[in-house]
């Protein structure tokens, strides 16, 4: 960076102006004001709006045919084939204790990857990609965890977005492969 006139530089700094670097002159002012924003995919489950970090979302697809797998929890809708790859598909609503989703035109499957494993999450509607300031995230009300609700583990934080409550989910708690198989069949397996 070529050094601008020292006096001018200081004056600008004091005025609080943001000074563009030389690289930015060259590449244009595409700089975001902040780089700590969390980008999330927001979607609807019943009447609630939820969100998960976009870095986990590999793709968003229309619903595809899913084969039920016996001996699994009710929220496991089954296994589907997406471009030759088999992946478990979960009903996110029933997983977090809401009434199970029914498929509509707006229904989508979020394909998320956790530790390079892919999972499909069925949601009622994908709404938006939002950028949230970390400081706008609020802890979930303590009453949730005090009530011993399973859901408390699933909620990572709360935020407000255009006047509506946005529930940020803790993806790794929601998608736990060890929980897919019904408990009584999980025990059985150990004997084999």
């Amino acid at each position, binding site marked *: 960076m070529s050094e601008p006139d020292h006096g001018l530089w200081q004056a600008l700094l004091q005025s609080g102006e943001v000074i563009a670097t030389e690289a930015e002159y060259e590449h244009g002012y595409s700089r975001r004001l902040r780089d700590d924003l969390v980008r999330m995919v927001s979607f609807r489950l019943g009447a609630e709006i939820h969100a998960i970090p976009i870095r986990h979302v590999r793709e968003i697809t229309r619903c*595809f*045919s*899913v*084969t*039920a*797998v*016996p*001996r*699994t929890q009710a929220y*496991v809708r*089954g*296994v*589907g*084939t997406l*471009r*030759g790859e*088999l*992946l*478990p598909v979960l009903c996110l609503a029933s997983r977090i204790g809401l009434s199970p989703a029914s498929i509509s035109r707006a229904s989508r499957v979020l394909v998320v990857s956790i530790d390079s*494993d*892919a*999972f499909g999450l069925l949601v009622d509607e994908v709404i938006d990609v939002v950028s949230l300031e970390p400081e706008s995230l609020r802890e979930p009300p303590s009453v949730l965890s005090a009530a011993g609700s399973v859901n408390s583990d699933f909620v990572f934080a709360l935020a407000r977005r255009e006047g509506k409550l946005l529930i940020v989910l803790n993806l790794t708690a929601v998608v*736990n*492969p*060890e*929980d*897919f*198989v019904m408990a009584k*069949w*999980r025990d*059985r*397996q150990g004997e*084999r």
Partner: protein
Amino acid sequence: MTSQLTALSEIQDLVEEFSRSLLQIEAERSGGRDSDPDLVNAAFRSIHTLKGIVSMVEVGQLVALSHELENCLDDIRLGKRALDASSLDLLFAAVDLYTASLAHAVEPSRAVPDVTSFLSRIKDTGAARPATRSAEEQVSLDWLHEDVRSVLTEYEEFRLRENIGGGRGIYSIHVSFDLMDVDGGIERLKSKLKKLGEVLTYLPSADASREDRIDLDILVGSGEGLEVLRASLTGETASIERLNTGGRSPGRDEGVPVVRGHESTRPDDVAITDGGSGKRRAPPSATPREVGSVASSVGLPGAGSAGSAPGSEGVEEPPQSIRSVVQTVRVELSRLDALMNLVGELRVIQGDFTRTIARAENTLRGVPEVRTLHVQTRQMARRIDELRDRILDVRMVPVGQMFDTLARVVRKLSREHGKEVRLVVSGEQTELDKLIVEELSDPLMHMIRNAIDHGIESVERRSAAGKSLTGKITLVARQRGNSVEIRVEDDGQGMDWLALRERAVSRGLVSREEAEVMTSIEALRLIFAPGFSTLDDLSRSSGRGVGMDVVKTNIMRLSGQIDVESEVGKGTLFRLTLPVTLAIIQALVIEGGGQMFCVPLGSVLESLMFERSEIETIEGFEVISLRSEALPIVYLDRIFDLPRKPGDGQLYVIVVGLAEHRVGLVVDDLLEQKDVVIKSLGPGLDAVPGVAGATEIGAGKTVLLLDLAAIVSDAVRDFGTGDRRRVEGMRA
């Protein structure tokens, strides 16, 4: 990382090659024959190459190990160290060290092998064993032309002396090969000569007859006469003569050892030298004889020797070895799996395509292109199938490698147990999917351990029983249609089925009443039952609490089957039947609880149709009668909590075998039989008991593959939780 892995697998191959040579050497030794010097040399070369590779990747103390081992083998092949039982033991121990070091390199949690103590052992024993032949005793090589002697390696010189010392004649063959066919020609000639004697060396000759030919001088040591050797050269452009090896050869000491090689005392020798051109050859490659060439030896002298270095290192390695290495490619299995997946998808798409055309046909009746389209899709289908078969081919490996490992186990264990055991192997070329071979080696090893531990008797008992003192374990692989059969047979004491039955009763595995009605075959199958062990004292190798039930489970996991036959005093035979490949299996598509499933055809004993009215109950358990035996039945929809199909009269039953049990699985319908590509269900769902995977059938339809063994064993356990006597009906 990948290059490291590649190097490791290369090292492994070489170690296996080395071990193979050792086994052959040992086989020859125990057969009372002199070990083939080529085998010792092959072992030496494996280690020599290995030394080169390990010096590039840092794997434990393998560099030091390879170095010492190379010295040791060099001493052996030069006769400076005896090749006896103890040095063979040492060499076999090295194989284990290599294997352990590799295992440690791949999985650092494995134990670090103790190379250091081995190194001191190999040095100690080496020092204790002086050369077998002192210098004075050595056969003189004065008769050999100095120029030839100077290019012989120490090993070649040693072999030459050994041959003369052993009373064999030394022959010189001058042979000319077409430049294009030189590699093949050398191999061809070598294999012919090997039957008659030992190829001591071959030197490029300066006597090139023509520009497009390469001439070689080959020294051969043989106990055969000249005529026999010459007969073997039929078809080659070659000439042969016997060399005057000085005092040792009878009646021959003319004192002109350098040039005058041809003998005139024997008529056959005369016949050869008759055609000689009398030309002296260039020193570096010349052997002491005059050329008696059958072919034209006039031409362009010196041209043929171009590119062939006369140095001692250069002549040892024939040029073709480099080529064969380059033509091999190592591929990770996962890459082939990816290709296989793609082919599976292609087939699915092709199926969709065919259906679309069939639908279009109704609306486009009479359009000629539709017909063409039909033909083209069929062609495509054929090509896709071909592609699939080719990819499967690539995954196939001969079982021989695994057999070699087992041969080492036999050797080691028979020593430990002080028993004489010979392993007879056949069908090593039989090919199986690499994955299956990997999964198979543990069960097979276990069976062989059992055979040595419990099967083969001690020498004293064998002699008392009038059997040959050496026990025999036979390992045979052969392909039978779409599956491979592997037999493991021993000629040991066999199993007494009455004793097995008693044990099962005392272990509480079967009731006294059940035992009473058991046939010998059923009783023998008891060894596959969990918790059954024939020896109370746990022996070192096979009694680790796992038994034949684990073997059976592992075989079943590979969609295979295992059966046993045994006769007291005669021996025991295990027969394993395995699918050739795992990626694609033959499946029976069924319907149960309103859902489609497929089951591996290999685990279906038979499928039947029954009337509902034929079902009877034994103390509350439903059975149907199959060939006058009661077959207990379980319902797929009940097992999986699926909605029940409203009952009409008929039901379908798949008969599944599990250990000594036969169980019928009731399903709604049998749909079709087809080849399917099996995939894992992915994280979480792969742990569902009773489901082994899934496949795609038709347009994006995923169908689950049932794990029949798990389903039926669950069902059997449910029977078992009731009164034990209720299981009565389950004996097939």
